[in-house]
């Protein structure tokens, strides 16, 4: 009985530790939204519905993706001509998006595991560009 109790306690602690470790990665995807017809990128299957519901675009194309570890310490990500600087944990992530050497937007985000935060409105050849951020 004592052994069983000890085993269950160990299992519980391990489960909690795994849970705490979740959300230690940040996925960053650069997406081009356009009015042109065609199907959206399959890599965006988890967010296509969200984008379609809220933005006036018909098509979403993945243009690049990166992953960084969290918490980040001034991590710089180059993607599609943009430079993203990430600093902090998923509960307090400072993000600065630059292009051509100037800051377009800086924000402080609180990310929830698996819940996308989308920052967009940047001009592109065919429409607008969007960053999809998901903590995993």
């Amino acid at each position: 009985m004592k052994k069983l109790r000890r085993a269950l306690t160990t299992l519980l602690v391990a489960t909690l530790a795994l849970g705490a470790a979740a959300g230690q990665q940040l996925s960053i995807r650069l997406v081009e939204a356009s009015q042109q017809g065609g199907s959206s990128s399959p890599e965006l299957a988890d967010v296509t519905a969200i984008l379609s519901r809220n933005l006036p675009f018909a098509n979403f194309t993945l243009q690049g993706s990166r992953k960084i570890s969290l918490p980040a310490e001034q991590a710089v990500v180059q993607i599609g001509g943009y430079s993203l600087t990430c600093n902090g944990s998923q509960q307090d992530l400072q993000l600065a998006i630059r292009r051509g050497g100037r800051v377009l937007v800086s924000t402080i985000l609180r990310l929830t595991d698996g819940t996308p935060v989308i920052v967009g409105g940047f001009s592109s050849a065919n429409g607008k560009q969007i960053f999809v951020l998901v903590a995993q």
Partner: protein
Amino acid sequence: MKNIGQLVREAAREGGRRPLRPADDFWREFRRQAAALPQTGAAPVKTGVSRGKLWIGLAGPAVAIAATLVAVFWSGPRDLASHDAVQSYRIGEDVVHGGVMILNDEPSRATILWIADLADNA
């Protein structure tokens, strides 16, 4: 000091000297005297709890229980995740834009920070 036995015997002797009245005469006299005196209604009997206080006493706990159940089980607008996702933002100093919108997608709780009419010279 007289004991109880002596008192009882004295009372019996007293009662013997005064003739007893017939019951009808006694009650007729009683009612006559009662009618002569101003009568007021019986004093209200207080049970210790007024109706108003009784209602409050019963309703109070019921309301408290109902409020607790609502607070526990109501899954109303608890989209804290989406509302709190964007803690702050700042558009670049020389960036011309038409405004900023923060959209919350209810089904997924996703948050969209959208910069409208951004003139970023792409």
